[in-house]
């Protein structure tokens, strides 16, 4: 079981949350994106073995989205930060 540090509610068990997958995917411009760019955005993922940034929704709590930095091998969580915060401003991780 993961203990996920919700920025608003503190550490809670993962059964309260919904996993939202890889974070910081940028939606392409709908007027100009090619099929390839849409495919990339919708389906292709890094599927990192190691440290990844990912989104979580506290569905059975505050119902807010946020980002987490988690190692997909050890499951260690090293940071949690609100949506919209850019990658540069936050601590370690790929």
């Amino acid at each position: 079981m993961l203990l996920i540090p919700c920025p608003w509610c503190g550490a809670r068990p993962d059964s309260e949350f919904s996993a939202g997958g890889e974070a910081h995917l940028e939606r392409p411009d709908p007027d100009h994106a090619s099929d390839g760019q849409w495919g990339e955005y919708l389906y292709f993922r890094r599927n990192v073995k190691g440290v990844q940034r990912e989104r979580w929704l506290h569905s059975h709590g505050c119902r807010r989205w946020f980002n987490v930095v988690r190692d997909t091998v050890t499951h260690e969580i090293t940071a949690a930060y609100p949506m919209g915060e850019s990658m540069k401003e936050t601590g370690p991780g790929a």
Partner: protein
Amino acid sequence: MRYSLFSLLANAAGGHRRWPRAWMSPAPKPSYDVVIVGGGGHGLATAYWLAKNHGIRNVAVLERGPIGLGNTGRNTTVVRSNYLCDDSAHLYEHALKLWEGLSQELNFNTMFSQRGVVNLAFTRHELAGMERRAGAMRLNGIDCELLTLADLRRWIPNLNLSRDLRYPVLGGIVQPRGGNARHDAVAWGFARGASALGVDVIENCAVTGMRIEHGRITGVETSRGPIAAGRVGVVAAGHSSVVMDMAGVRLPIQSFPLQALVSEPVKPILHTVVMAGHVHVYLSQSDKGELVIGAARDSYLSYAQRGSFHLIEEQLRALIELFPVFSRLRMMRQWAGIVDCAPDASPIVGLTPVHNLYVNCGWGTGGFKATPGSGWVFAHTIANDAPHPLNRNFTLERFTTGALIDEAAAAGVAH
């Protein structure tokens, strides 16, 4: 050596001390016509059919551990072909037909047992969906029957059909030709068969890099040194993204833990496979007498081969509601494997942007049943540098063109 009654008697007389190795595990040669990355059931089957159907015998299967310790040896062994979309129905039905003769083909007992696979419906919509699926299957020439509550009462006497359940059972379907097989035997049988045809099954040899020159693959780097290769097929299940990343090829795959557990062994009590997707549990009884119980996969990406505890709680809650008779059974072992899930829950078997590099992945929670057929079409794809008609639409490009094979029947709990 061919296994037969005679070889059994002869070796019994010798105290079973002179059985030869089932497959050789040689040191790698510097170069092969074809290198297969991943010695699970699919990789070994690919090598076997390359040698058997296409006469390509200068082949190595590179497995980073001992063979059969990946998902091949971790799955719950349900074999079926009850899929909705035509493309999937044909692919899985071809595999099921191969299963029916596989023990004879490999001269190795895969313990394939066509005990039937029952899917239970718990909502009106699920029942309507199953009726539609049964119709589609029959149009594709695949066996499937609708089951009423009276049928279910006769067929599975221990099933709780009370109206008082949180989710009462409304009906179901059965594929009588579905069933179970012995997972290890499939890996061992294909390894032995491939080895006998001249394939090098190389264990403890991890692929660590890909050599690519002018958009064409020329070999792989491994923990046991570089190996040159004319063609390379990647069949690495949960690690497909990691291996393809070495060639700079991105995949629409995410890796998740899927777990299972077994009970203590008991006398025969359940003669068929029962799947209850809506409440997330499915089970069968192994030949040893253990109940083999599976559930939904974890929701978050992971390469750690362990699953969340709350899923076990939920799956056992559903189990006991459906089968109160099992409430005092003790559970013996629990484990997880890492499954490679594609967005449309269908596999990817075909060419890649790198010449002579082929990929076979995305089987997710349900690829064991496809093992012989997956190897069959992948061997054809590698040998001809073009897909077999059965995997023609299971391309990587479909995630750009949008021609997905959206197979809900393969998703979620139905393995």
